[in-house]
């Protein structure tokens, strides 16, 4: 059985040893082992005592190659003589293998896997001092881990095993009771981000809503809601990403790739009139001038005079089917590029 343990050890400096090391630490991580098994793994696989010091957390773990917990070393300076790796998070934490006379080919693989495993495990086992606002931010941030999202969801009393949606609203928009939200600095300026269960029927008066997703997908849902909220208007105050269909991903892709275009310039010119964009939207969304007038709450003849002017400025017929689609796409892309939110008093 001692031979078996030796066969586990990665003393041989070939590629299969690196695979062993990676497999070992990945399995520990996947099965949510504690901190000590990671350090023990480094010791057993290298055949030398291994250690982990995290002064901020007051953690000092040292294990010998048989798996016994060994006395802690005094201070961290002494360990710098051995192969070691400092965490790159500025915490001053470091891991090491007490191999005399320099590191072996696989020591750096071991130390990298060890430190990565320890960092993720530390995050998992550490208590979080979160307020609701911070928890929402963790949920929608693309840099959060799934573990931290789970903790944040629990903090907000949101289900961790059912889909959720992200809702984005202008910063001054009141949220319905019970919807967890916070102000978030985004590429659009300050917006209000909330997280809701998919069964929710009560939305803010003006908002964009992302698709329903597992915790892992919430940053994606957030990105979708950031697109949808820019399409919000008086005529369509709540925009669901799901209902945009292929227009959603199309607009997202086009936002950065379509350069200047005459249609966009013409729509931008319409925005000079306070009624311009709304009128265009009504015309694009209905199939007759009469229906559009009804949507806008205008007399038919008032709209007819606006239409005459608009047709001239746009250079195409916005009452024909093709023209309506053309106008809708241009209007949507225009809003996507121009709608921004400024910080307001909360």
């Amino acid at each position, binding site marked *: 059985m001692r031979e078996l343990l030796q066969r586990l050890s990665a003393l041989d400096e070939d590629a299969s040893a690196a695979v062993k090391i990676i497999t070992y630490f990945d399995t520990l991580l996947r*099965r949510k082992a504690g901190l000590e098994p990671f350090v023990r793994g480094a010791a057993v696989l290298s055949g030398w005592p291994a250690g982990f010091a995290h002064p901020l957390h007051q953690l000092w773990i040292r294990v010998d190659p048989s798996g016994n917990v060994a006395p802690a070393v005094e201070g961290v300076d002494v360990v710098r003589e051995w192969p070691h790796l400092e965490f790159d998070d500025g915490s001053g934490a470091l891991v090491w293998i007490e191999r005399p006379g320099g590191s072996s080919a696989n020591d750096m693989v071991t130390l990298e896997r060890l430190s990565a495993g320890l960092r993720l495990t530390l995050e998992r086992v550490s208590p979080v001092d979160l307020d609701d606002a911070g928890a929402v931010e963790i949920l929608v941030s693309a840099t959060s881990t799934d573990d931290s999202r789970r903790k944040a969801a629990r903090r907000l009393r949101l289900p961790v095993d059912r889909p959720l949606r992200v809702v984005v609203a202008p910063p001054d928009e009141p949220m319905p009771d019970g919807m967890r939200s916070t102000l978030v600095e985004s590429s659009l300026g300050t917006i209000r981000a909330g997280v809701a269960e998919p069964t929710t029927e009560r939305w803010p008066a003006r908002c964009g809503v992302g698709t329903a997703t597992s915790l892992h997908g919430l940053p994606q849902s957030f990105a979708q809601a950031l697109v949808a909220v820019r399409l919000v208007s008086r005529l369509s105050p709540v925009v669901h990403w799901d209902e945009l269909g292929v227009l959603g991903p199309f607009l997202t892709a086009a936002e950065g790739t379509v350069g200047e275009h005459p249609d966009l310039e013409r729509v931008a010119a319409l925005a000079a009139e306070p009624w311009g964009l709304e009128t265009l939207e009504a015309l694009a969304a209905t199939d007759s001038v009469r229906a559009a007038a009804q949507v806008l709450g205008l007399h038919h003849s008032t709209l007819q005079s606006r239409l005459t002017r608009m047709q001239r400025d746009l250079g195409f017929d916005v009452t024909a089917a093709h023209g309506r689609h053309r106008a809708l796409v241009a209007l949507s892309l225009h809003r996507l590029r121009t709608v921004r939110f400024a910080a307001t008093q909360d």
Partner: protein
Amino acid sequence: MTLRNAAPLPAPPFDSESAAALALTVGTPSPLTADDIGERRRVEAGDAAAMTRHIEELGLVRVDEEIPVADGATITLSLVHRRDRIPTSPLIYYMHGGGMILGNRWSGADVFLEWIERYNAVVATVEYRLAPEHRFPVPQQDCYAGLRWLEDNAGRLGLTLETALLAGISAGGGLAASVAQMVRDANGPRLAGQLLLAPMLDDRVTRSARQFPSGIWNSTENELGWRSLLGDLYGSDDVPAYAAPARAERFDNLPPAFIEVGSAEVFRDEAVAYASDIWAAGGQAELHVWAGAFHGFQLFEHTTLARGARDAVRNWLDRALGYSGRD
């Protein structure tokens, strides 16, 4: 019944640290089939040669005895002890594992080398004959004959059965349990204890015997082991208790038992039931079910789980032998 096509049942997850070590031991064909037995025994013979060399290097005394058994054959029984053994050195009679079809008397010897070192014990390890060439009752009778030979020669060897323990791993644990019942039924010597590590006790398919279709000593291999041992008796109601100790009608007057098993192995349910049967009959048993332990988890000595199990065995031995082992 065929387990291979059965839908997978939910099963306890493996201990994380043991699973990480297990993930590195790929390469052994699984499940083992009857065709693999010859090759596996050849590998084990090589391991045995290395182990006997190791024992020599440790400076231990080893004496091989040829002992007669019931059918006129002879089998080998080796006695191993330190040079400085003392008159009161306890006897531990060891039966190796291997599902009744594999292994030799040096399989798992690391375990008993520790007892020799810590307790200055004299270990007797027996080369019982294996199934399927030798079906029940041959392996059981060989093990029993070994014990009676030790009893007959105790004076010459400077041993007493009064403080002797039976010990076995896996199939060896089942054989140790059988020997304990045979000795009791024959009004033989009263032994000081039986150490049953992940013992193979029951040919009937328990819930845990269905739960592990893959891995070390899985459901398929367990069936192979029992079929090899029992031949035509397999699956019938006529399997005697000496073949499958869990089938005993009486569990009274057995030596105090230490039973160790993993929650994630085939032998879990029969080990738990065996302890319960001993208690119900007024006997003494100590049962350890290690959470997330698979069959053979003790091999990964560095894990916290294996270290806990090792400490539990040491603690029981301290009590069963009446003195604490030395580190």
